[in-house]
């Protein structure tokens, strides 16, 4: 009986992960967080409800002061927090000279600050029993991406966070995973590469399968690494 919190669950990889994991018998409680209430409703509608308690909480994660009481209320209701999937992401591609302060703030609040705060609050309840945290970074965090400065650098922070937390939380029995998806057909990707045909690239469901494999109890060796998740393009004929 495990409780799993998923951020960014209203669309893309977050939604695909929620749907995929709802078929796992060992997770019984799901808490889905995202800003969009209608997006969350759409995710809940696609999930397997049999034997599951699913709670969708429309939440603006950029309000980081609201995270502490939110996580406490989740713990109080379910009695444990066992899995945390930090999937929420924000992107607003712009060249350095066009990157506004608002863009920088929003990107970092969602991709970095909220991820740190939600992790901190969850770890208070995840300590001392085997638990897992999975952060979704991006290949943009480890390769140069002119025109994506705020997003790419924020994802580099997520990669670094995973490496540090792997060591810092090891004593508590918490395993930390970082995945960096490459091109994936999400709404976010559409903003970053509007010209791309989404049917030709990796789908959110492919990433969700990787997530499901990593957070399964049987997986014990791949934590602490930045795992690039990428579908190689089909050979051109």
């Amino acid at each position, binding site marked *: 009986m495990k409780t799993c919190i998923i951020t960014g669950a209203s669309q893309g990889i977050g939604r695909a992960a929620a749907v995929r994991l709802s078929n796992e018998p060992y997770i019984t409680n799901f808490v889905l967080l995202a800003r969009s209430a209608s997006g969350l409703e759409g995710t809940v509608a696609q999930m397997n409800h049999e034997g599951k308690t699913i709670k969708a909480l429309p939440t603006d994660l950029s309000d980081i002061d609201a995270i502490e009481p939110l996580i406490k209320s989740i713990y109080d209701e379910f009695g444990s927090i066992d899995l945390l999937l930090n999937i929420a992401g924000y992107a607003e591609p712009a060249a350095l000279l066009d990157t506004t302060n608002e863009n920088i703030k929003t990107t970092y609040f969602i991709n970095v600050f909220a991820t740190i705060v939600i992790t901190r609050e969850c770890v208070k309840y995840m*300590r*001392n029993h085997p638990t897992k945290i999975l952060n979704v970074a991006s290949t943009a965090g480890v390769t140069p991406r002119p025109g994506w400065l705020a997003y790419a650098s924020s994802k580099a922070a997520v990669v670094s966070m995973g490496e540090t937390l792997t060591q810092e939380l*090891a*004593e508590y029995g918490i395993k930390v995973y970082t995945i960096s998806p490459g091109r994936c057909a999400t709404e976010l990707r559409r903003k970053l590469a509007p010209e791309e045909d989404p049917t030709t690239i990796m789908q959110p469901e492919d990433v969700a399968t990787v997530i499901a494999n990593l957070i399964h109890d049987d997986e014990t060796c791949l934590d602490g690494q930045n795992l690039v998740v990428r579908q190689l393009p089909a050979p051109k004929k």
Partner: protein
Amino acid sequence: MKTGMIILAGGVGKRMNKPIPKQFLILAGKPIIVHVLEKVEQLKDVERVVITCPPEYVAETHMLLQHRNLVGRFTCVEGGETRQESVYKGMLELGECDTVVIHEAVRPFVSVAEFRELIDSDHENAIYGVRIPFTVLAGHEYVEDTLERSRLVNVQLPQKFDGAKLMKAHEKARAEGIEFTEDASLLFHYEQSQIRILEGSERNIKITEPTDLIIGEAIYNEYVLGRAAD
């Protein structure tokens, strides 16, 4: 059977040459005292835990507790001018206890199993000790006496004592104005109580000198995480 614990965190870290007391220095990613608190957290039968620390660090210690949801059983009070006075103040804060366990914040590598062995020991007074692997002589500028190494023991914490007897011994020491460096000596001096010496561990070091921090990182990686370098 009420068991209380005092965690001594009163050092000012002169030997470390650092602006903050050594118990608040970072070791393996967290303040040294936190390593101890997280072990004590797992001792559910210890009803109250009193941390004694310098007055200017009481608030900070409360924050460390709060950040880890260590509220309720744990509290922090101002320590005394001396180690002995800090123990006494800690006992006053604990109130009447059948057993008092004393540990120090700068011994981060005590294990939960060691705490358990001590608390569960049939002896009402028990301490940890390790054999002394080197020769100790009496004297400062000149040798004044030899000591028989095989009769000596290097005293470690944690320790546990009968609460009433320890309080009585402390009150006698206060009345006479005598200072002891630790509580087994004090209790033995006044009460001649039988104090069992349990086998301590090499890794339960006291972080005192700057090099101890370096050694501490190695102990953490090897014994706590169980990770040798790849």
